[in-house]
């Protein structure tokens, strides 16, 4: 805005400035993607706030794999343009809280079901029962319609085969196998205070074995864990690269698809799991498009796209799944009580922090 005032001065510096600013405008303007970037950058000083409105691309907060492919397919099927950003469940929740009353996102796609439960309780979600949700198993959806599960996340062991061979250690099949003392320093698991994966795994063990035995097991497992990772992505990454032998993570199939020499193990003495839901953010100005997105993710076609681009079992029985994803019947899923886990969350994390955190 200062610049305009000086335009009349035939000063070399200012002419130059103007030219460069214009170049900047052109760079931002001739972006190629129609619409969003056109008015993407306002003149500083022109203090307007822009919001998503009907007709503008759907804004999606996502914690999901293969997003680009999934969103492309959705746009292709429905004609609704989409913009998305990946974030962890915690970050989405933080943002929704900060943005309450003036949400910047329309849809929350994927993440830990516990965060969705918290969000629903706090009035951050819009209830919507999709016509497609009747095909989804009861245990995978919210009775009040605040969220609907789209896929099942499984906590697995991501085992580096080459390293296992080098060490002559058989690939572990059960949680008990992880207590092998040859695995000392070889197992990486995230911090349960940060990672939903780690928390669900621990709470599952406690529910499966009971309080006392469960904590004993966790203490023994702790002997083999060099440290608790701060990000959920670290265990599978390090296992893929051979920095450790085993990473506890739901993302093993992705590492395998990348081409790393890893084996994905679904522990046969109890695989921890949760459903990854989709929900509409309360107060969205883009409600109709948001509903269409929820519907689409639950259709047979949507479920197929999801399963193939983010390798996880579907919540809709009969939807096609790729070969590297197990069907739910073949797994020994933990009989997990989500409400109990949510209730005990703080106590579990505190106790872990006190006794086992390094």
């Amino acid at each position, binding site marked *: 805005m200062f610049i305009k005032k000086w335009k009349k001065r035939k000063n070399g510096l200012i002419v130059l400035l103007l030219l*460069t600013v214009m170049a900047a405008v052109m*760079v931002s303007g001739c972006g190629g993607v129609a619409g*969003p970037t056109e008015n993407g950058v*306002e003149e500083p000083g022109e203090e307007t706030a822009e919001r998503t409105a009907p007709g503008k691309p759907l804004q999606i907060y996502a914690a999901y794999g293969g997003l680009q492919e999934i969103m492309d397919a959705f746009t292709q099927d429905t004609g609704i343009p989409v913009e998305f950003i990946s974030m*962890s469940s915690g970050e989405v929740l933080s943002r929704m809280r900060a943005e309450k009353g003036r949400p910047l996102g329309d849809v929350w796609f994927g993440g830990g079901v516990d965060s969705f439960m918290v969000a629903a309780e706090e009035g951050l979600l819009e209830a919507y029962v999709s016509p497609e949700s009747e095909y989804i198993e009861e245990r995978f959806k919210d009775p009040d319609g605040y969220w609907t599960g789209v896929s099942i996340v499984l906590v697995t062991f991501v085992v580096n085969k080459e390293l296992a061979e080098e060490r002559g250690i058989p690939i572990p099949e059960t949680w008990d196998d992880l207590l092998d003392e040859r695995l000392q320093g070889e197992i990486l698991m995230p911090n349960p205070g940060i990672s939903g994966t780690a928390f669900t795994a621990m709470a599952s063990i406690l529910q499966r074995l009971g309080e006392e035995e469960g904590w004993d097991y966790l203490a023994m497992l702790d002997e083999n864990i060099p440290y608790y990772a701060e990000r959920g*992505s670290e265990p599978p990454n390090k296992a893929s690269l051979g920095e450790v032998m085993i990473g506890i993570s739901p993302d093993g199939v992705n590492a395998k698809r990348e081409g790393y020499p890893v084996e994905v193990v679904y522990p046969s003495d109890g695989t921890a799991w949760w459903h990854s839901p989709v929900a509409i953010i309360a107060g969205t100005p883009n409600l109709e498009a948001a509903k269409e997105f929820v519907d689409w993710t639950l259709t047979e076609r949507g479920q197929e796209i999801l399963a193939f681009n983010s390798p996880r079992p579907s919540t809709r029985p009969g939807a096609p799944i790729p070969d590297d994803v197990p069907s739910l019947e073949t797994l020994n899923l933990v009989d997990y009580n989500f409400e109990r886990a949510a209730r005990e969350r703080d106590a579990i994390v505190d106790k872990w922090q006190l006794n086992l955190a390094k």
Partner: protein
Amino acid sequence: MAAKLSQITAEARDSIFRGMGMLIPLSLLVFILYPFFRVFLSSLGVPGPFTLQYYSQVFFSPKVILVWNTLLVSVPSSLLATALGLLLALLVVRSGLPGRGFFNLFAIFNIISPPFVSALSFIMLFGRRGLITRDLLGLDVQLFGWESIVVLQAFGHASVAYLVIATLLSRMDRELENAARDLGASESRVFFSVTLPLLTPGLTAAFVLSFTLSLADFGTPLLVGGGFRVLASEAYLQVIGQYNMALAAALCVLLLLPCLAVFRLEKLILGERSFLSEAPVQAIGSRKKEVSSRGFHPLVTALLLFIALLFIMFSLSIFLTIVTGAFTNIWGYDYTLSLKHFEAIWGQGLKSVRNSITFALWVALCGPMVGIVTAYYLAGRRGSAARFLEFTAILPFVIPGPFLGISYVLSFHRPPLVLTGTALIIILLCIFRELPISFKAAQAVLRQVSENLAMASLDLGANHRQTFTRIFLPLTAPAYRVGMIHAFIHVMTTIGAIIFLITPRYKVATFEIFDATNRGSLGQGAAFALLLIVLTVAGLVILNLAWKIPSFRHRHKERLQKWNFTWKTSKKATTAPGR
């Protein structure tokens, strides 16, 4: 009639000019001080009842170790970075060896290297299956812990330290050293009792810089720390993992304390002593008959050379690892050549890259103006209000990135000023974050030349606006350039400050790197990083072209010569304190 009209427009222009003068203090208050107080309030539980629980949660729990951890990493890493920077600067500036330009380019290059990927490259090279540690040296090491953080940060920030110290060293008046030699002091005595004390401002500036950079760095501890937590990473995790904004705010306030402390320390060390504020003008004469350096003892030169070589090799290997990762099939595992990572990022990814460039250009072009105008506004103003505004203007220099980001979210989501979700808030944040550089640079010009000139101009009948546009602006062109270059590099490579502000529409390339490494698509992360490096270099070249336009340069030169200043003087005088 016509004359009257033109008089009216001239008056209107003047009042607009005066109005802009009002805007400066206002914007400093709104975009620096207000967010700052919001974080502070939020850490005290506002909105809601006043509480100190978030601080007691840090101090009276196992979390207190975070404070020590942070210092344990930041103090050695910034000391090392400063020492390394000093050695490199001595070698390049003083040893008389050729290749200084090359080395400068290299140091800048090292600064451009985007976050996260360097840490991943580090693991690929020096990790348990690292190309160097295992395949070359046959070691089996586990690379977790604070030592790795210190090493990575020290090497990363050494470039910054080097640039600051080298600038000072090359501008230093060598008369004093020569005098000491003439009086019979040995080379080492000259170095320790003349050169080093003269370098104090550079050393402290370099230390403060790398210290704040290290405090604000949450990526490196997360990636190579192996569970080792520091305040910055904890603040980040509190927001993303536990949705605890208030505790994150408290951690940020704690993070700010050491920053302010070293900042204060720098002032104390430097005191009111003047090291070179007047030197450039006076030293022109002596500089010309500069005595050729006698150079160092061959052993010292060899040692310096060895360290420099180590530095170059380290940084180069990190860069080559990024290139390798970007163009091969599977990061760290399958080295078959492949373009698949670039194909994968071609769609949505390019949009993020374009956003990065757009933001960087806006900030690079508009940002320095704010700094220059601020310097002009504060010039000649005395009193506590002006001193306070000046402090506010350089405050962003020591505010860690995540702190700034969180403060903007807290401040600008609700009325009166609703900005979240726009590109504007990201641009504004970056402009004010980069403000201290162009502000300081412009201030340096002002101190040396402009007071007399402004006086003369006013005496001759020009008003303030004319003085500003005709005298001050052309003189501060070099300050503009410095601010522009720094701003461009920083906006292209920053993540900590803006990660809390980006929306699906305004994703940036650094975020994509972060996201790709999170997903385990390390090759894509490397591809993004490489793209970012190339574009940053290209952007810098293009932005610098403006200063190469002959007619502009010529006219500018003439104007300066009219006032008996050489182009060199003003340019040297304004080389920024760097950041």
